[in-house]
């Protein structure tokens, strides 16, 4: 195994962008954050946890990125993003709560790109 499985980061990019698009639609339709966006965030969170598991397994197996501290920082930050977005967006009664979720989806997709820059073994 020369690299981290490319399927999981790819799925996260797609899921993140899809969630962002759906959340932007809800924002445009003047809908506050509801159950559907919460479920979307939940799916994103599970995917991110799976990716963290895969990366940790790779690290235990002996792989090392050039910047290990940075990678660990990302591993800590990644699962926090959907959770923080869920709280911050759910407590807002207007369409702007949904907009917050769009940001979370975009961030998840961007994080995959940044991860690849930190450790090229992680790729889409």
């Amino acid at each position, binding site marked *: 195994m020369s690299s981290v499985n490319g399927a999981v980061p790819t799925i996260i990019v797609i899921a993140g962008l899809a969630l962002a698009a759906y959340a932007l639609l809800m924002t445009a339709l003047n809908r506050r954050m509801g159950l559907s966006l919460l479920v979307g965030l939940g799916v994103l969170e599970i995917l991110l946890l799976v990716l963290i598991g895969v990366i940790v397994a790779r690290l235990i197996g002996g792989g090392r990125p050039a*910047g290990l*501290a*940075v990678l660990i*920082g990302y591993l800590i*930050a990644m699962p926090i993003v959907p959770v923080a977005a869920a709280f911050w*967006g759910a407590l807002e009664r*207007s369409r*702007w709560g949904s*907009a917050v979720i769009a940001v979370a989806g975009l*961030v998840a997709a961007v994080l995959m790109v940044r991860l690849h820059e930190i450790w090229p073994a992680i790729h889409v």
Partner: protein
Amino acid sequence: MTPPDAVTPPQAAASPEPAPSPPESTRTGPGRLLVAVYGLFALSASARAAVQIATKFGHAPVAYLLSAFAAVVYIIATATLTSGSPRARRIAVVSCSVEFAGVLAVGTWSLVDHAMFPDATVWSGYGSGYGFVPLVLPVFGLLWLRRWTRRGRNRRTAG
């Protein structure tokens, strides 16, 4: 036929158009999105500056110190916009103004003097490494804060 004025409740204003409901706080409404993005940048810029200063400060000290300054500005913006108190709003206006000037100044400087900015920082190239969000963010911040200026208040009390 009763004149329409007779059934108008006394406390209703005579404004011809419906007044927009005033934003309750800088952290609600559109401010919700603003605080989310500012918080994101506060964390991201702080982490990036910390890593740069901790691991390779001698490589580009000016650039990394400016990176740390940007992180502090983002932290202040996030905290003050979340607070929403009148004093916090005043601080936020100053912070966003400094932020906007900073993006323009560092952006220009980084394009002119490559030797001083070998590594990308948050405000390098006007925030091009972050989709130019650092360039537009303070503009939206200041526009949002304008709703609490005297003009914004007059619009509220007139309705």
